[in-house]
């Protein structure tokens, strides 16, 4: 039997893989196609060839002020990520470079707070937000998103910081670097890729969060998740516009996601899979 992979094997595998991939991707593809159809076209039946009109993208903005929820999504995901990093970096730093016997336990505890079902605290959080005037505010929601993603942010940063070889820091110390110089010239440049990866993954997770962003907002702070969810009741001739809104809502995150596969594995399997 020939050791080399036969071309026949390669062709069959390729065909099967592409078929499966296209079936899985189809809903997204069809949304994109529908978004550049006219409304009558959109409900006329299955059709893969659109008329390439961009009128829907324009209408969504003018009729529904699409910019506002879009900006809210941006502010909430970026804002909560930056806040999580500001709180998380010192934490992960301390845990990675000055570990104690309890460090692993603290980390596990932090991760366990993420496993609490959100709905269990829906009532108190809703009431507290109402009483403190935080309902439907960007501040309130930013705080929520920061809290629920903080464990993952700290976890990811911790794993990246731990990968910085201790010997390089010792070499810096031998080379005469004081603590501050060690941080500025050696530690930080080596930590930047890890921080960037954590930032990327967290923006994705915050953008797509679909419980608190829907339940704690109404109009002014509603991000895209709530905006899209508000179209759940059928209203006839609107599907092409909704496709345009959907495409714009998922496009940035989709593209970010394509580049963050490794980070996803690291961040969401908590190191159990390499």
């Amino acid at each position, binding site marked *: 039997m020939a050791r080399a992979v036969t071309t026949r094997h390669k062709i069959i595998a390729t065909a099967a893989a592409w078929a499966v991939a296209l079936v*899985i991707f189809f809903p*997204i593809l069809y949304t994109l196609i529908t978004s550049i159809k006219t409304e009558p076209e959109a409900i006329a039946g299955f059709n893969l060839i659109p008329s390439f009109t961009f009128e829907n993208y324009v209408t969504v903005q003018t009729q529904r002020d699409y910019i506002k929820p879009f900006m809210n999504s941006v502010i909430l995901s970026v804002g909560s990520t930056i806040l999580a990093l500001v*709180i998380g970096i010192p934490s992960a730093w301390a845990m990675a470079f000055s570990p104690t016997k309890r460090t692993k336990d603290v980390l596990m505890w932090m991760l366990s707070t993420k496993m609490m079902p959100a709905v*269990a605290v829906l009532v108190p959080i809703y009431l507290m937000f109402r009483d403190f005037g935080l309902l439907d505010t960007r501040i309130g929601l930013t705080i929520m998103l920061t809290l629920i993603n*903080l464990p993952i942010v700290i976890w990811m940063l911790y794993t990246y910081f731990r990968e910085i070889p201790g010997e390089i820091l010792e070499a810096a110390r031998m080379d005469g670097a004081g603590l501050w110089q060690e941080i500025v010239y050696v530690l930080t440049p080596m930590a930047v890729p890890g921080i960037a990866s954590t930032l990327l993954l967290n923006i994705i997770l915050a953008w797509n969060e679909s419980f608190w962003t829907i339940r704690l907002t109404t109009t002014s702070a509603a991000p895209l998740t709530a905006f899209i969810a508000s179209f*759940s009741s059928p209203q006839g001739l609107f599907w092409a516009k909704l496709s345009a809104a959907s495409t714009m809502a998922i496009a940035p995150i989709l593209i970010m996601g394509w580049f963050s596969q490794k980070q996803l594995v690291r961040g969401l399997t908590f190191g*159990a*899979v390499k």
Partner: protein
Amino acid sequence: MATQNTRGLARLMMAPSVILLLVWMIVPLSMTLWFSFQNYNLLNPANVSFAGLFNYRFFYTDPAFFQSVWNTLMIVGGVLLITVVGGTLIALLIDQPIFGQGIVRILVISPFFVMPPVAALVWKNMIMHPGYGVLADINRLLGLQPVDWFAQYPLLAIIIIVAWQWLPFATLILLTALQSLDSEQKEAAEMDGANVLNRFIYLTLPHLARAITVVILIQTIFLLGVYAEILVTTNGGPGYASTNLVFLIYRTALLGYDVGGASAGGIIAIILANIVAIFLMRAVGRNLDR
């Protein structure tokens, strides 16, 4: 860096996150616990009284409660089944020598990054819609009656939508694990006379067991909290056919304004989550120890 000075500094650096998460854990949860023993309805906020276990008994006797627990378990179990089996198969397929593996990966991984409201609406209106959905068109092509998914099989429809979103996650994790299987082991097995199927059963599958365990554990945590997909498609209906525990509690709280009831439901949700976690940990815990 392990001197006396840095120990104090380290504690200071960890303080904000530890305090924040501690407060986040304790305050809302204790409030929920407190509320669960109260008669407290937002339509009548002045009239708050101690209710003992009334709220819990109410849930226990409510047929909708058991239906919702069952639906929750169905959603978790159904999605796990589809994603683990499907993920393994797709990972095996992608791991083959194929042209354009990078693009195939990107296509397969995409559903995970689609926000749940969009995913739900796309499936509801474009694919499962009995009027102009793709599946309806296919049915008509085959001479069959189009299926009204959300009326006839609402829970199944939810399961399909959620499974579509999580399949990429399982695939990616399993593919990563698959590619870490030492090729020398495979060659040794081949020398020992194992054919493709045997190599899969005795080498690949045990190696994947750990990754599958992780996938199951992580996904379960998130699947217990499916919400937006139900909100946007069936609203829990028809009746309670597609209501899971999260949705039931949401309805009790924000549609029924029943703070006491919803809080009791919340405590039950936590207990359920812990039971599932313990059961899972015991059933698959040995895989993680290896």
